[in-house]
């Protein structure tokens, strides 16, 4: 069975990859056992362009997670990849792109230092 680790272990290797349907080439995120377009269960892990657009973002002030993980306030980004899927992410350190800005993926270590995360910075 697919688990979220299948995604994160690729991130740990610095590889931003999501599922792509082998039948109709539709990209999908989060993990799903079948293609929502053609219902095929055949897929492969593929690296999208890594380019996307900032749909929106927020600044979280409420402390929902331990201080060792996040220093409030912090920004959270909602990105649409050029390939279609939306995902929650973060902005690269020191960056605050605006809604509609073009961005690209970059890897950064989390605060605890135990997980490499795909984040986004203003596209070159």
């Amino acid at each position, binding site marked *: 069975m697919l688990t979220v680790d299948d995604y994160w272990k690729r991130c740990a290797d610095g590889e931003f990859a999501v599922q792509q349907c082998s039948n109709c080439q539709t990209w999908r995120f989060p993990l799903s056992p079948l293609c929502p377009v053609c219902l095929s269960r055949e897929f492969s892990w593929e690296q999208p362009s890594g380019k996307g657009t900032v749909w929106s973002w927020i600044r979280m002030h409420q402390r929902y997670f331990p201080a060792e993980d996040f220093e409030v306030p912090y920004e959270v*980004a909602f990105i649409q990849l050029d390939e279609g899927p939306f995902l929650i992410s973060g902005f690269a350190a020191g960056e605050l792109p605006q809604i509609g800005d073009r961005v690209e993926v970059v890897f950064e270590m989390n605060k605890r230092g135990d*997980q490499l995360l795909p984040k986004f910075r203003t596209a070159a």
Partner: protein
Amino acid sequence: MGRVAIIGVGTTPFGSLYRDRDATRSDYDLAAWAFAEAVADAGIEKDEIDGLFTARVGSYNRMADMLGLQRPTVINGYEAAGRMSGVAVQAAAAMIESGQATTIALVYGNNGRSAGVKYGGDAYSSPTAPYDAAYGMTSPGAYVSVMYQRYKHLFGAPEDALAPLAINNRANGALNPNAVMRTPITTEEYLAARFVAEPLRLFDYCLINDGGVAIIMTTEERAKQLGGPVITMEATAAAGDLSNFYSSRDFYYESAKSVADRVYQRAGITRDQVDVAQIYDNFTPTILLSLEGFGFAQPGRAWDWVRDGRIELGGELPINTSGGHTAESYMQGWALHVEAVRQLRGDQGERQVKDAEISQYICVAPIVTSHIFRRQS
């Protein structure tokens, strides 16, 4: 086919339960309390009830046994999501109209405060929670904030755009003896309050409190025999806008518009005829999206439309007359349904909308629902 009527509504106290901070309460107990109130309100014998819908409580088995309703003809159990209150009421109406049952009790119990529910953090589940948490993203409010940030950006809504909504709820709560929050607030107080998930501030957020709500529905024919004001459900409609995120790409506009078109057409009214509306407000931006999707305001302009008192008591469209989810009680739409009925009975004291004949419930969320209620003369 005859119409469906709401003959009984019941609520637990909200304000007094909130002030007693040490109490630990059970969701079943709260639901049962409201059920007893609704049965007394309807003036019927409990044994007349042949349908039981439960919401938020863990098990309809336990609930049925506790209420002494072991052999109902129809049973539905709904999850603890606010969008489900409208769905449940809609399903109950359909069951009564089709003759599957005659008199259905819908019971809801919420012990969120006693149970320490946070609606965010490690215990929070959503389709993308295992990914979101790595970035500190969590909670339905944060997702609505994501959507509102974009709305604000696209439509030029100012910093205090949501203030009239929070202020209106508190002003109405001040007139509701049962409301949790009864102190009015000003724009300055709204702006001075802390951010939770910026751009949303404290007063944009619903409460977390304990309470129960029950509603009893039956045929209009049966309602007429009971002697009180007859409140009918004239129409109901729904539409999904479902994704992995509590953020709609078009601010739920198309789904809300579709529900609006159908619910007004089925009720045979125009939106101008609505005397009072109860609009789902887990977070204040959803009120703006509702007013736009249902055509009261132009897309992107509801923040401006609400600024001049239109939504207040005495205004063109009084909304959330009980104080809504940010002042009366966070009963996930259930208490808004009750208020929609009570306003038509015409006995709501200081917060009564004068001569209210038609009320509307609106919930704009991943499942958009709306109903039109009417007092029959």
